[in-house]
């Protein structure tokens, strides 16, 4: 449904996206996960035919995004990042306008159907300018699905929403995703995990990893970090060496005299926290607190960037002629094909 090959975009001399290659299949929800400025919006704007890439090709619903832009635009529903709508139009008039431009048959019935679906039917005569942020988002979604597009592209669909609205919009996307191919961008990890069949992690215009959410989660859980607060006969530094010697412990870092941070190996296979606790007590220390430090999105990126750096060097050393074929068929670790 969506196929991108070596997509590259420069803004002036600034490289926004760098040889992106990915695919999204029918009935799949694919998430673009990355920090702001990673190139998500740029990629989506290229896929929707808003602007052409500087290099590379992309096909949406079988049509080339540049050469057959109009055909692509007929088949794509798009929710831009800031959901810019005409504030001086009513919800109904706005959808009528967009529906006419897209030549939707039986327009009035379809608008009623879509408004019902996004739960806005009773506000159809309200001016868009008077709607709350969450409602505007739903108008944007209604507009995006109005013409029954084969592909739906949603840029940060839950940004700026309160938690309740967020849940609402997510449910809606999940429902839509059963019939359409959906590509959405987000910088919220849990959202990507919850919604998407597959996640592309993108940073500084490059795909760092491509994983199913399960595998992504595995990777996250693997890099578990535990923080301990201890007190005892000597300083915590002495305990540090003892803990570091435990099997499964990668690194122990002393934050101060009382706090230790322990990084556990990804493939330890079991929960090492009881082992840690016992080791602390056996050493004659008291354990005041133990908590898991979950990796923030930032940490994951840092980790991935580090991994990428390492794999680049490896690839350069071992296999100088790495091909760029079908990155999506290897969902496992490094899907980033650029050596």
């Amino acid at each position, binding site marked *: 449904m969506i196929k991108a090959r070596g997509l590259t975009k420069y*803004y002036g001399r600034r490289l926004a996206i760098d040889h992106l290659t990915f695919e999204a299949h029918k009935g799949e929800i694919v998430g673009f996960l990355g920090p702001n400025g990673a190139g998500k919006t740029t990629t989506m704007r290229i896929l929707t035919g*808003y602007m052409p890439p500087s290099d590379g090709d992309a096909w949406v619903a079988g049509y080339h995004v540049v050469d057959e832009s109009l055909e692509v635009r*007929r088949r*794509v529903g798009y929710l*831009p990042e800031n959901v810019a709508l005409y504030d001086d139009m009513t919800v109904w008039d706005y959808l009528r306008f967009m529906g006419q*431009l*897209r030549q939707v048959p039986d327009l009035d019935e379809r608008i009623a159907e879509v408004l019902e679906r996004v739960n806005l039917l009773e506000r159809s005569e309200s001016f868009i300018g008077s709607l709350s942020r969450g409602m505007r988002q739903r108008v944007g979604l209604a507009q995006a699905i109005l013409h029954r597009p084969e592909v739906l592209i949603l840029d940060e669909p839950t940004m700026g929403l309160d938690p309740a609205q967020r849940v609402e919009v997510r449910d809606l996307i999940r429902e839509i995703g059963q019939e359409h191919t959906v590509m959405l961008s987000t910088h919220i990890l849990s959202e990507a995990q919850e919604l998407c069949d597959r996640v592309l992690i993108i940073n500084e215009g490059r795909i760092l990893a491509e994983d199913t959410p399960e595998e992504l989660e595995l990777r996250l859980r693997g890099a578990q970090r535990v923080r301990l607060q201890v007190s005892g006969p000597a300083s915590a530094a002495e305990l540090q060496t003892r803990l570091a010697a435990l099997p499964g412990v990668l690194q122990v870092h002393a934050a101060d005299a009382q706090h230790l941070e322990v990084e556990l190996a990804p493939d330890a296979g079991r929960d090492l926290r009881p082992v840690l606790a016992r080791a602390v007590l056996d050493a004659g220390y008291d354990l005041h607190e133990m908590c898991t430090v979950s990796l923030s999105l930032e940490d994951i990126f840092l980790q991935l960037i580090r991994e990428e750096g390492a794999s680049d060097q490896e690839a350069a050393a071992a296999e100088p002629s790495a091909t760029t074929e079908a990155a999506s068929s290897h969902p496992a670790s490094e899907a980033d094909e650029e050596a």
Partner: protein
Amino acid sequence: MRTVWIIARREFRRYFTSPVGYLVLFLYLFILGLIVNNSLQQAYAFSVFQGAPPPGADIVIGPMLTLLVFSIPALTMRLLAEEQASGTLELLLTAPVRDWELVVGKWLGAFLFVVVLLALTLIYPLALHLLTEPGLDWGPVISGYLGLLLVSAALLALGVAVSALFRSQVAAFVVTLALFLFLWMISSLASAGSPSEGVLRYLDFGHHFYTSFFRGVIDLQGVVYYLSVTAFGLFVGTVIIESRRWRG
């Protein structure tokens, strides 16, 4: 063409749901009314005391072009600038709308509004017709209004092109007005008899109006001039929108 019409219709309606449309209508008709009233009083005095002939349609049509020069920037300033500033352009350009359809649709919507505006001013020639004996010569009225429509088409197209260039409506207004005034004054830049005089006079949009349409003559050269300026403006507007895509 269907797309052009959908966009034009929306744009036309927007003039009546926003203050700008009403403001332009009100000011245009009000100021024109003051000028016509003033001219009528003068003409009355001349005819009573000096036996001058009754006033013709020129006292209405004469000031109308000047008023258009100041009104049209207010009508075109937001057409594309607002879409760019608010980001709504992104949704239009990701709908199956060609760039030229968008530009022409915007222009057509504004043109229809000017048609309504000009139609409303017809009350002045009508009043003049009823007030004077033996009534009005309708020839210059018809050619004058045709000329005004052509001038409006051309100025609106230039205004749309300028609006495509800016995100700020104020900037679009100021630059459009400056452009109009420049084209309005351009023939006075030439010294008489110089080789550039002919060219500059040809570029002057007021010149074509006052030397023919205003005098009851439909001049082919003038028609060609206004239509080509219209086409040029729309073309430039389309190119600017297209280049927005490339620049992102």
